[in-house]
Structure formats: C-alpha cells, structure tokens
C-alpha cells in the first residue's frame, strides 16, 4: 500500500518547485507535471481495490479519531479521485502541445488544482474541505487569465462570485461548529439527528450557496460561460471535468452523509431542475461554441443534482455514472472544440464549417463526445441515460423522466447543428495550424467505448459508492471506530 496522502502532498510540493525545474530547462515543467499526474494515477490504481472493499481512514499526525484531521477514502472518494486524476493525466498529455503561450507558473497552478480537487474529495474534515475548495478555486482564478484578452473580465467575475460563495461556506462551517462542537464529518453526521431542524435547514442552504459555485448550480453559475469561453482549453477542461465533479461530490457528502434529512432533497431537486432547463434552453441559442458547451455543462450538472435528489440507491448510482461520463465527454468535447476554434480562428459556430476533412482527429473527437452526451447506443452516455430514465421511472417521478427526454431532444438540436457544420459544409476560408491532440482524443475515446460497451467495469464501484452515500452509519463507524 502506498500512502494516499501523497495524492495531495506531491502535487503541492512539485507545484512550488516548478520555478526550479524551469530554471534547469524550459521544457521540464510540462514533463514534470505529466509525471506527477501519472504518479497520482498509479497510487490510485494500487489502492483502488482496498478502498473499494475496506475503506481507508488516514489520520494525519497519528492523533486519535475525533481529534485528528483525517482523510477518508471509501468507494465514493476513490471513484471521484480516480476520475479527477485520470482527467488531469490526459490534460497533462494535452499540455505538452498547445496553441497558447504557457509557462512554469501555469503548471504550478495546474498541479495546485489537482491537489485541491483531490483533497476536496478525500478529506474527512469540514474546514479542510473549505481550504481545499479555496486552493482549487484560487488556482482556477489564476489559470483563467492565461489566455489574456477578454479573460481578465471573466476572471474578475469569477473571483467576485467565488469569494461571495466562500463567505457563505465559512458561515455554514461556523454555524455547524457552533451547533455540533466538532469539524469532523463523522461526528457531525453522528450528531445531526439531534440538531434543530430549522438550524439544519439554514446550514444546508448556506452550504448549497457555498458549494453551488463549484458545482455550477443556478443562480451561482453566472461565471461559467464567461470563464469557459475565455480560459485556455486545458483550464476549461479541468474546471468542467474535475472541479465541478468535486463540487457535486462535496454537495452529496453534505446532503447525504452529514445532514441526511429527506426534507432537504426538495431544495436540491428544484434547484437541479431549474439549472437543467435554463442550461439547455440557453445552450440552444448560443452562437459561440465554447459558450454552448459551457451551458451544456451547466445543464448536465443540473441533471445530475436532480437525479441524485431522488434519493434511491439506483438513482444515486445512475447520477454518479452520469457524473463520470460527463467528466470524460466534456473534456473530450472541450479539447476537440479548442482545436477546431484555433483552426478556424473564431469561436463562432458558423465559422467552423468544413473542418471535418481538414482536422479529422479533432472533428472525430467532437462527434464522439457529442454522441456520448446525446446517448447513442455503444457510447457511455447511452448506458447512463438508460439508468437515469430507469431509476426515475422506478421512483415514480414521471416529471423527471420527461425532463430528461426533453433535455435530450434539445441537446440533439444544438449538438447536431455543430456536427452538420463541421462535416457537411464546404470550407472557403483558410485553416490555421494547430496542436496535435491525437493521444488525448484516443485515450478519452477508448474510455467512452469501454464504458459504453462493457459498463460492468464500473457498476460495482458505482453501487458501492451509492451505498456509501445513502448509509452514513458505515461511514461514522469506520471513522470513529464504533465510539
């Protein structure tokens, strides 16, 4: 067993050593970032089975259970951390060749985002959750401005909204501490049923505001389209694939493990449905391809929150599968769209015409990603959409089933519009030279088809993760040791 603390500690260490590597050789930071991400993936593969069947509790500094700041790595955490780090590895490969100017500072912040999101997912301490959220969002603010131009305004907007969110998050943590007297998640979960329900409702709403910013929930997602359309491609991808996934994970942790009150799921469901409907409808009208993908990402987050709020084990595992698929597909879409945009020299969808034969790999990547989101058979999105519809029908929530189908129809509208532009129109204007994205697109496409044709690869993990979310007793006894 390799100690999973290294997943957080190593990227942080390397991040601050980046100037040194840059001093030795200009090309070294990219390679070091790649190696760090690969090392993280290796740690996760080594620990995967143990975390799945025998959740690990790592107490930092060897203090005893309720006083220690602990990491909890169970099925849910290992699933999320695996998704985050695989995405980070793919993007580190993508960063070796890129269309925009980046330097060692970029890699420092990139590694900090990996450390922050992995920490968000693994931590068992409420205040550490706040610190890791801030690490990843401050790194994200910094990364946004790397493409210059209009990105400063996007970054300013992101900073303001993110900082307001962090104030609310801190208030929620303060009230939780004042009412429970501990910051350990297991102890809070243990004490939650004795809490005043009114107070609990206020606390969870404050948490929803604070974390909703990372999880792209309405109405806190005003920064998403601006940041996603202005930031460099790999930043957009990691925000969409890793940071928002970690946000949904923390939201699940707080709403299911910590404050498991069925009355609260109505809030989640309402917010999720509003996010879904607004996201899809606005995405349909976008002319800018990156903004379109950003709104599609918002809609997917809304869909996941809606389905998780049904609160049956089938629905939660479907939601988690959709989350994994969304991370894979959106990263694929953003990488391909980034290449298409720099080839056309414009972000407008109408300027992308006829790139299908000029940029075959990126166009194919975009097509695969779009089909996956739509849920065409043999793509991973098909299996998860089937599970979503199945679980919402079993829970007798016909409205949600109808909404999922409605969302799919709108998605067909706007994704096929782009595919039609790329493949079935002639190109008259010139094509710019772009980076080669063969390896990232290949890796992600393999994941898409592997999960689509053989979903058993992941279903055990998903079921165990859903079980962990819905049964907080196991979590509590594992951390506190039957106290």
């Amino acid at each position, binding site marked *: 067993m390799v100690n999973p603390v290294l997943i957080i500690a190593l990227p942080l260490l390397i991040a601050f050593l980046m100037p040194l590597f840059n001093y030795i050789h200009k090309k070294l930071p990219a390679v070091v970032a790649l190696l760090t991400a690969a090392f993280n993936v290796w740690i996760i593969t080594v620990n995967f089975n143990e975390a799945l069947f025998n959740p690990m509790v790592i107490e930092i500094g060897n203090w005893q259970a309720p006083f220690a700041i602990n990491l909890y790595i169970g099925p849910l955490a290992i699933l999320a951390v695996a998704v985050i780090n695989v995405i980070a590895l793919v993007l580190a490969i993508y960063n070796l060749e890129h269309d925009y100017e980046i330097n060692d500072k970029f890699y420092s912040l990139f590694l900090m985002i990996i450390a922050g999101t992995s920490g968000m997912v693994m931590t068992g301490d409420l205040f550490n959750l706040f610190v890791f959220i801030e690490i990843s969002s401050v790194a994200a*603010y910094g990364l946004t401005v790397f493409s210059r131009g209009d990105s400063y305004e996007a970054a300013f907007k992101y900073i303001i909204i993110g900082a307001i969110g962090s104030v609310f998050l801190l208030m929620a*943590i303060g009230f939780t501490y004042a009412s429970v007297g501990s910051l350990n998640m297991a102890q809070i979960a243990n004490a939650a049923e004795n809490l005043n329900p009114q107070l609990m409702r206020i606390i969870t709403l404050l948490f929803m505001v604070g974390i909703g910013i990372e999880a792209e929930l309405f109405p806190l997602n005003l920064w998403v389209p601006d940041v996603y359309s202005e930031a460099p491609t790999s930043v957009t991808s990691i925000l969409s694939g890793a940071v928002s996934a970690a946000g949904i994970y923390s939201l699940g942790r707080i709403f299911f493990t910590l404050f498991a009150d069925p009355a609260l799921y109505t809030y989640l469901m309402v917010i999720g449905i509003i996010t879904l409907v607004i996201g899809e409808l606005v995405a349909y009208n976008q002319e800018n391809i990156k903004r379109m993908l950003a709104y599609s990402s918002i809609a997917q987050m809304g869909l996941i929150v809606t389905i998780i709020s049904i609160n049956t084990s089938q629905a939660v595992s479907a939601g988690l599968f959709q989350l994994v698929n969304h991370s894979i597909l959106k990263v694929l879409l953003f990488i391909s769209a980034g290449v298409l945009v720099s080839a056309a020299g414009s972000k407008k969808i109408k300027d992308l015409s006829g790139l299908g034969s000029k940029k075959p790999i990126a166009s194919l990547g975009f097509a695969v990603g779009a089909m996956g989101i739509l849920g065409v058979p043999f793509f991973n999105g098909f299996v998860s959409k089937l599970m979503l519809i199945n679980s919402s029908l079993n829970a007798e929530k016909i409205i949600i089933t109808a909404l999922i189908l409605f969302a799919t129809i709108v998605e067909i509208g706007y994704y096929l519009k782009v595919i039609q532009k790329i493949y079935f129109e002639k190109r008259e204007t010139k094509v710019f030279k772009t980076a080669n994205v063969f390896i990232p697109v290949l890796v992600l496409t393999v994941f898409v088809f592997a999960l689509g044709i053989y979903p058993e690869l992941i279903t055990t993990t998903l079921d165990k993760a859903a079980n962990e979310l819905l049964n907080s007793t196991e979590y509590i006894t594992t951390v506190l040791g039957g106290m």
Partner: protein
Amino acid sequence: MISFLEEWSFFGGSILLILIGLYGVITKRNLIKILIGLSLMDTGVNVLLVSLGYVENGNAPILTSIIKNNSGAFVDPIPQALVLTAIVIGVAILALGLAVTIKIYEKYGTLDISKIRGLKW
C-alpha cells in the same frame, strides 16, 4: 437594553457587516469598491467565527500555566485557528482581484463596470 446589546452585538454586528459588504458588491459600479465590499464580507464572517467561540470572561486559550485557579474557562481556540486561515485566504483573493483590476484598467482605461464591454452581470 445594554445586556441585550452585549449579547447580540457580535452576531448582529458581524451579520450586518456581511450584509453591508454584499450590498456594496452588488450595487457599486467601481471595481475597487466592489473589492472593498468583498473585504468587508470577509471581515464580517471572521468576526462571526471568533464570536461563535467566545466564552464569557474567558482567557487566552491553551496556556494554562499562567492562570492557576481558572484553567477551564478559556475561549474556544478552534474558531480562532480557522479565522487565521480564512484571513490568509481572504488576503490572497483580494490581492488576486486587485491584480486583475490593474490589468482591466490597463486595457480599458476605466474602472467603471458599466463601461467595460466584456463584463456583463
């Protein structure tokens, strides 16, 4: 009346500070003033956290040796530790925000958000 003020001025005052900051962030058109509002919100939440851990007549935490007879009654140290971290994070965000403001000013020559094209609220 006085006892009521004593009891509630910490909570009420800090919540008021947060709301004043929020009002500033939402209504002001000047980038610097928005950041000042943000800083007020940060301060408000820090005061709130410290006041949550306050104990009547409490001493400075942990150092028991200098207080012989009343070692149990010190203020809760954990919120203070949290606030130290939160202050550092707040300063980092503020510095980053000001740096971005400088860049926006270089580009547009104004700090008024209604005149900055890309910034749609």
